[in-house]
């Protein structure tokens, strides 16, 4: 297949014969449109194709946590935790969370892109379940979360992270982060339907996430913080997720911590799925 600008011009010189157009127009039977489930599958497929065609997005959000990992461990590790290897043990589960959660902002960005490019108009005039584009994308994005999580874990393992609970711990950790990310992504799809441009969605998303990421237990022991800050870190859902993931990775998971994460993901989903679908259907 030819690539590049030259071939763009070339291809456009293709002559279009009336016969060829007529051949393409021969009307077949009007098929029964895809069921809600199969429409969702098609949209999930679309979402995965984008990871293939636009890998830059994935690289953007995974390089930052990997840089954080290297920088924090080797620069601050000794000062914060006494040794770089101890700090790596402490920080890796948190950076796994950070990496995946930043990726959820892209769900809002790509929905906004569809909106501004007019693709949403086409989907909304199709005879399919109206929420299928949203639900399908939400499930397709799970692959993105898993890839983002794996990149951080592999980087950590290379640096010498000791996963006490082995592969099972890693997989369960990624699973739990994905559950939370699924809920959080609906917040950003709502934002995606309210903003005027994809970059506005990105700015808003990162502005929401940055304080929550830093004011959590990802980087430091909350007990070392001033009381007010320690209180905030304690109620921050991201801290709850990080605590549960640390437990899963170390093999000392607490059922209560994990249930709390599920509950918080459920609350996000219950609030923002109806908001997103409603805005999607009515946005003019």
């Amino acid at each position, binding site marked *: *297949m*030819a*690539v590049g*600008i030259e*071939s*763009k*011009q*070339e*291809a*456009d010189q*293709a*002559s*279009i014969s*009336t016969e*060829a*157009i*007529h*051949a*393409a*127009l*021969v*009307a*077949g039977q*009007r*098929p*029964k*449109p*895809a069921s809600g489930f*199969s*429409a969702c599958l*098609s949209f999930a*497929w*679309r979402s995965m*194709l*984008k990871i293939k*065609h*636009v890998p830059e997005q994935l690289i953007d959000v995974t390089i930052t946590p990997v840089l954080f990992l290297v920088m924090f461990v080797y620069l601050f590790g000794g000062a914060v935790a006494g040794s770089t290897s101890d700090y790596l043990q402490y920080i890796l589960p948190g950076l796994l969370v950070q990496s995946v959660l930043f990726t959820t902002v892209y769900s809002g960005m790509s929905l906004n*892109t*569809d909106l501004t*490019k*007019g*693709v949403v*108009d*086409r989907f*909304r*005039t*199709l*005879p*399919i379940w109206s929420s*299928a584009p949203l639900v399908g994308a939400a499930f397709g994005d799970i692959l993105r979360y898993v890839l983002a999580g794996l990149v951080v874990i592999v980087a950590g393992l290379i640096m010498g992270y000791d996963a006490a609970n082995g592969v099972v711990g890693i997989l369960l950790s990624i699973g739990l982060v994905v559950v939370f990310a699924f809920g959080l992504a609906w917040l950003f799809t709502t934002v995606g339907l309210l903003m005027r441009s994809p970059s506005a969605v990105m700015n808003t998303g990162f502005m929401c996430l940055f304080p929550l990421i830093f004011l959590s237990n990802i980087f430091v022991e909350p007990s070392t913080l001033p009381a007010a800050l320690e209180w905030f870190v304690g109620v921050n859902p991201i801290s709850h997720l990080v605590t549960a993931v640390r437990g899963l990775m170390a093999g000392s998971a607490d059922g209560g911590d994990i249930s709390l994460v599920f509950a918080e993901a459920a609350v996000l989903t219950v609030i923002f799925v109806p908001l997103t679908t409603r805005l999607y259907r009515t946005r*003019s």
Partner: protein
Amino acid sequence: MLAIETHGLVKTFGETRAVDGVDLSVERGSIYGVLGPNGAGKTTTIRMLATLLRPDAGSANVLGLDVASDSGEIRRRISMTGQIASVDEELTGRENLRLLGKLLGLGRKGAAGRADELLEGFGLSDAAGKLVKHYSGGMRRRLDIAASIVVTPELLFLDEPTTGLDPRSRNQVWDIVRALVGQGTTVLLCTQYLDEADQLASRIAVIDRGKVIAEGTPAELKSSVGKSVLHVRLSDAATRDEAERVLVQELGTEAIEAADQAAVAVGVPNPDRAAEAVGVLADTGVEIAGFSLGQPSLDEVFLALTGHAASEIDQDGEVM
């Protein structure tokens, strides 16, 4: 049965009455043009008919179905090609068409076959595997129309399909639209170009500030400003009134308001007399910079119908 029938269709956005009581009736199997400048309410009208917007008042029937209560069934039978090419730039042309084929129920294999057939027919086979963001404007537009006929619709909405295209691409799009109608599809075509409506549409509604201000065949519309128009450019704007008086008298017709201070435009019922009239004008001592005889432009049709230039219309009314 009519393909589209609306009565008193209204859509307001805040203070703006974007569509202000539009009545349309569109025969099946034809191309119906909706002609107007930006902000006239064309896009809002088409979006209501394509079930994307709810009308605030009035009624609209599409293929005999009510847009308010039967939107699901309408969606099974229509397609829309929006003002901005509504294809996914981050997928290839082939993937775009396959996705739609699957959603419309052709199945995996059926969707793949239909995609190849359309790519071939629309001259996009060579670019099938390339991301749409690398397509030219004309290719994107053809893919967009192909996407609208993955399953041939009974009614196709085309919103300014050739805006921004070069003449060659524009002609290709026109050929495709004609072929579609040849297959029995009804097309509602929104355009700001009289030329385009003239080439394609069998009837035209001229829409301005949310209202239909004229309706008829292209010939009927043009005859409302005279069969042809004589444009005379003057060396000196001060001689404009004099020039206008002479031409009106010579041709026994009416002047058409022109935006240009140094130009006169008059309707010409009989083109044979035009050259003679220019001669008489030259004899009076008015210095002529140039002249031409042609079809009335959209601006002139507009001036004749509305008393204001198309370009004077504020853009506030244009709603996505």
